[in-house]
């Protein structure tokens, strides 16, 4: 201690200076299986500098430095220390790192130490200023880290009135960084024959058996070292130390070409057909290495799965069992043997089983005094007596711990023996063991319920396991090392065999003797203080009793009422004790009481790793048109339409907003000529002798009658009678059509056509394939469009009005022999063409058309102007084809053939779809021509209340019409066709609009169609 008290103040006095002497680690032992004593690492906790070694966790390094108090409990803000040495940790929850990489609610017991690690305790008070003061008054390592907490524990009257409300306001434990995560995450998939989960003795044996059979094996270990409990115990395998056996097994697996070992990888869920795992690639480093993700999500697709997840030790439930210094016995052995850390100077061990006696032996071997072994059982084996005697520990059989002392650190424990006599022990470490619970979480991810075994006092894997899963090792409920090795070998060999490999069982090495006899002790009665069941959620035995008294007796109710089993540890240390108490209070068995359902994830998984690369503009892929780069050069503003990015408008300098630009573009089409990339429209090549038959069945109108070289507008319905999509289809040959769909429905129409040809009418001889991407298609629209087209079409092709009238199509060549397709179709209502070329030439064609059209006033236009032009012509588009409109609703009722069957025909005759009062497509213009229309406004008669009951339809699309000089719109109005000339209101409560509008024909520009036929 004197070393520490001399060292710390000097360092604090000059924190920025180079440090020649590192902070001492007064609790570090000479021997450690898993840390590299030569490699020193510096880290800080709550601003205080400490040192540790590579191979340490934050928890082990803190313990080595004498830090016991690491946080405050969630509800009562009780001082808490480190309970465990693994993922089950409920207490030692800290913030790791700082700045944008700050990560809240991280378990110190699994946080691998790295140089420069910064950790901060959570859910505690003081301010940073007080932190510094506390450090300045640092006296001794054990007390020091918690000094400042003391300040705020006192006066007690402040606790509830001042401190607690303040702290509660900040509840939720850790703080998110609030900044963008600077690291990236990725996802990957791997396939294998055998997935082994857990690399303890069972998992290693399973992997060895499967690898030797030649199977492709993936071995996942959530720790950064392989070995599981072998690292924590002093055991013998085959007349050697278990660590030696471990080294050999690991070497063999590493050398096997078909074995992939994933360390730092938690398998968190069993899904349908795949297991999910997170590999913490960069969590143990200050920042991930260049080009490496912070974490990687593994989707593991395996033929067979062997779960060797081990088991988790249960705390004992007794008064004030949460003081810093009360620790799980197995964790004590982990700190002593693996990390070379004494979690205390003087220990008491309290257990109800044989296994815990090892703790006494290991502590004694490490030089830690063991004051007493308190065994709850009335009788103990001679072996346990021998261990206690050898360690100089007083053995108290049939005894209980009924009281603990110390506030910020454990100072002592009171043991009440079978005769009722109290024994007072000074101790700063209390190792407890209530037995071990198999880690069965993954076994029940497919709905199987773990089964209670009275004999083993544990929930065992359900009989109905996820398909392909086998369980081996301590996860089966048989924790003895010899059994683990045997069951692992057996399960690994069997898994390989079932995956199609010839296998033989590997030799199973002998182990030293052991025993895991246990007699359940679910709580200590008559003790003093709160007896915690769930440390993370501050649920005490009395809370379970209260829940029971208040009627929350089902396990799922108990969980939700008390929060037992929630939060980051998901009840790993608390569930079984909680259920046992509820069973006791209900006077039922544990089997009758049941257990809550385990669902993924087994351990916390960051949202970032689930998203992987799919965030920001990589959230989903983007589809680009052949003229995208050209449009970018033109300064186009793009808009997402489905996966596509389309040019929305092409602003010119000085144009105030999109409306000015779109108006100019639309006017140019009406008055001169415009160019628009329409490649995004779905294009489907339909061939075969029955192509026309299929079209007749999917379109409401006729296509068999369409002559070669002609184009027809078609509308297709869904089978329920509503409109599905529309577009033009050209007949290129007797047995070949080119269908176009809307951009939005291209994929679903393709799927629909496949449905029709494969499922409804499989006898049709028709072949279909999307050619959307094969062709760049450019609309050339406006009175001067023919001149532009003539500039590219090769000699010999006559595109005069007589030779190539409206709704013609031709395969021809342009620009000196380039295969192209020309369609005389018009969405704008002007003389217009769509010219298609192989997509690689789309960019050059657009540039050529711009060049040729320059003297003609050619103007590129985007989909805003396209929208203006189509509203002027009354063409329905997405807003009108809403999935709730019939062909008749949008003025296409006459297209529905009476002479043939087609999809949707029967249901379109339904009374509801043919009712005369359905809203139908109309045009509107504002009574006050200067007024601006808004889509979404509802039609109401002029003198009615603004009630939904009076609603007569709504405005679907609006546009400012350059041709007419005012706003116009389309809408769906009840009995609209009878109401031309009527004035109704367009009522828009959302935006405060209430305008009078006149009902007019939807076709407001060139109603006779002279222009497009010109």
């Amino acid at each position, binding site marked *: 201690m004197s070393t520490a008290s001399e060292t710390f103040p000097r360092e604090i006095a000059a924190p920025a200076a180079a440090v020649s002497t590192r902070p001492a680690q007064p609790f570090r032992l000479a021997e450690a299986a898993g840390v590299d004593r030569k490699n020193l690492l510096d880290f800080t906790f709550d601003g205080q500098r400490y040192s540790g070694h590579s191979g340490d966790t934050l928890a082990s390094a803190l313990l080595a430095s004498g830090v016991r108090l690491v946080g405050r409990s969630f509800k009562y803000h009780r001082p808490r220390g480190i309970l465990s040495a693994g993922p089950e940790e409920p207490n030692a929850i800290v913030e790791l790192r700082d700045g944008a990489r700050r990560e809240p609610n991280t378990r110190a017991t699994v946080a691998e130490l790295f140089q420069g690690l910064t950790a901060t305790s959570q859910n505690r008070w003081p301010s940073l200023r007080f932190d510094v003061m506390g450090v300045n008054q640092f006296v001794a390592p054990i007390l020091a880290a918690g000094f400042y907490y003391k300040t705020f524990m006192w006066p007690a009257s402040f606790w509830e009135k001042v401190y607690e409300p303040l702290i509660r306001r900040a509840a939720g434990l850790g703080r998110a960084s609030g900044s963008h995560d600077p690291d*990236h995450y*990725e*996802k*990957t*998939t*791997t*396939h294998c024959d055998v997935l082994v989960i857990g690399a303890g003795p069972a998992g290693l044996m399973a992997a060895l058996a499967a690898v030797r059979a030649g199977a*492709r094996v993936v071995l996942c270990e959530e720790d950064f070292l392989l070995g599981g409990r072998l690292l924590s115990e002093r055991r013998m395998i085959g007349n050697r130390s278990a660590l030696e056996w471990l080294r050999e097994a690991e070497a063999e697996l590493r050398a096997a070409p078909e074995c992939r070992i994933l360390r730092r990888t938690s398998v968190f869920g069993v899904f349908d057909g795949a297991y999910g795992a997170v590999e913490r690639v960069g969590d143990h480093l200050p920042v991930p290495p*260049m*080009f*490496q993700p912070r974490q990687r999500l593994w*989707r593991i*697709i395996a033929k067979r799965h062997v779960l060797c997840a081990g088991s988790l030790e249960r705390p004992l439930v007794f008064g004030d069992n949460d003081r810093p210094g009360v620790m799980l016995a197995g964790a004590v052995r982990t700190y002593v043997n693996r990390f070379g850390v004494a979690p205390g100077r003087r220990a008491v061990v309290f257990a109800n089983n044989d296994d815990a006696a090892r703790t006494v032996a290991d502590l004694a071997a490490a030089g830690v005094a063991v004051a007493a072994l308190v065994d709850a059982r009335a009788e103990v084996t001679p072996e346990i007596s021998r261990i206690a005697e050898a360690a100089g520990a007083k053995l108290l059989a049939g005894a209980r711990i009924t009281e603990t002392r110390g506030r910020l650190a454990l100072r002592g424990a009171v043991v009440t023996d079978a005769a009722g006599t109290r024994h007072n022990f000074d101790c700063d470490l209390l190792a407890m063991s209530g037995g071990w619970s198999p880690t069965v979480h993954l076994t029940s991810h497919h709905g199987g319920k773990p089964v209670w075994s009275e004999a083993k006092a544990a929930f065992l894997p359900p009989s109905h396991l996820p398909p392909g899963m086998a369980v081996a090792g301590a996860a089966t409920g048989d924790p003895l090392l010899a059994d683990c090795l045997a069951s692992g070998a057996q399960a690994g060999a069997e898994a390989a065999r079932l995956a199609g490999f010839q296998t033989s069982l590997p030799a199973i090495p002998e182990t030293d003797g052991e025993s895991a006899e246990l007699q359940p002790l679910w709580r200590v009665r008559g003790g003093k203080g709160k007896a915690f069941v769930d440390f993370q959620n501050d649920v005490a035995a009395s809370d379970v009793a209260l829940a029971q008294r208040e009627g929350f007796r089902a396990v799922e109710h108990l969980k939700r009422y008390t929060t037992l089993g929630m939060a980051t540890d998901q009840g790993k240390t608390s569930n079984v004790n909680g259920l046992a108490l509820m069973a006791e209070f209900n006077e039922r068995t544990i089997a009758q009481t049941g257990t809550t359902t385990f669902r993924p994830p087994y351990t916390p998984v960051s949202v970032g790793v689930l998203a992987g*690369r*799919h965030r920001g503009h*990589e959230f*989903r*892929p*983007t*589809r*680009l*048109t*052949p003229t995208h*780069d050209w449009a970018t050069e033109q300064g186009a503003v793009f808009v997402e339409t489905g*996966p*596509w990015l389309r040019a929305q408008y092409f602003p010119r300098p000085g144009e105030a907003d999109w409306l000015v630009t779109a108006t100019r573009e639309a006017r140019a089409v009406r008055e001169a000529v415009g160019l628009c990339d329409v490649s995004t429209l779905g294009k489907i*090549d339909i*061939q*075969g*002798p029955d192509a026309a038959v299929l079209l007749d069945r999917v379109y409401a109108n006729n296509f068999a009658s369409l002559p070669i070289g002609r184009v027809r507008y078609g509308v297709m319905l869904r089978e329920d009678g509503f409109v599905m999509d529309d577009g033009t289809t050209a007949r290129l040959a007797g047995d*070949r059509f080119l269908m176009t769909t809307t951009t939005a429905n291209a994929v679903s129409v393709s799927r629909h056509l496949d449905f029709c040809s494969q499922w409804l009418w499989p*006898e*049709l*001889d028709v*072949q*279909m*394939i*999307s*050619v*959307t*991407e*094969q*062709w*760049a298609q450019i609309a050339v629209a406006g009175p001067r469009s023919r001149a532009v087209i003539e500039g590219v079409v090769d000699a010999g092709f006559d595109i005069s009005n007589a030779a190539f009238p409206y709704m013609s199509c031709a395969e021809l060549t342009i*620009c*000196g*022999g*380039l*295969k192209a397709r020309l369609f005389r179709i018009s969405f704008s209502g002007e003389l217009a063409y769509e010219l298609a*070329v*192989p*997509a*690689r*030439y*789309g*960019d*050059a*064609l657009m540039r*050529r058309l711009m060049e040729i059209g320059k003297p003609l006033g050619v103007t590129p236009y985007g989909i805003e102007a396209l929208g203006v032009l189509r509203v002027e012509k009354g063409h329905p588009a997405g807003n009108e084809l809403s999935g709730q409109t019939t062909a008749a609703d949008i003025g296409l009722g006459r297209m529905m053939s009476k002479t043939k069957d087609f999809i949707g025909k029967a249901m379109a005759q339904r009374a509801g779809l043919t009712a005369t009062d359905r809203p139908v497509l109309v045009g509107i213009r504002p009574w006050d021509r200067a007024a601006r229309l808004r889509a979404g406004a509802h039609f109401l008669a002029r003198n009615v209340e603004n009630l939904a009951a009076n609603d007569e339809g709504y405005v679907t699309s609006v546009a400012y019409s350059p041709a007419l000089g005012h706003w116009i719109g389309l809408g769906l109005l009840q009995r609209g066709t009878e109401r031309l000339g009527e004035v109704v209101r367009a009522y828009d409560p959302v935006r405060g609009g209430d305008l009078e509008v006149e009902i007019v024909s939807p076709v407001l520009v060139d109603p006779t169609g002279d222009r497009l036929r010109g």
Partner: protein
Amino acid sequence: MVEIGLLSRSPLAAVLQPGHYGQPGQDGLVVQERTGLHIVNLAARRGQGGALAVAVQRSWGLELPTTPRRAGDGRLAFLWSGGAQWLAIAEGTGDLELSLKDRLGSLASLTDQSDGRSVLRLSGSRTRETLAKGLAIDLHPRAFTPGDTALTLAGHIGVQIWQLDDTPSYEIAVARGYAGSLIGWLLPAGEEFGITVLPPG
């Protein structure tokens, strides 16, 4: 190729420049955009699958695959591409569609897809690990060998992949409009292994 007055442009012109990317000094992945490929989709007319196979065998000496396989070589290959459907892929200057039409007549519906797909050649020792970050299919040599092909997803993008040899090298075809997004996935996925992008060829 026809002598035309328009320049072709790759969808990757702005996003895939030759050079080295990612981990310096390493070449785990080599990427090359394929150019000059003629790609024609063949879909057998109903009941003509057998006759089509015979015609392909007679004309080119190749066995039209009935499983996800590729028959042929770089000059001409038939790539299984769905039920009774194949992609014929050829290098060179001839008109593939015309030559197929001449020999196969009305046994199959033919559709030019030369511009509908972008094709990348991927090779290098870490190609499989790179691809695993997007493709969920098993590319392990025990499961996927030279000549095998698959239609699947790379991330959220539909692709067709086929293996050329066991160095390993692959070609991967993607709808032209998604080519940029595919590169946007591929380069970050491979950067930890080091990437060389070769000039198109």
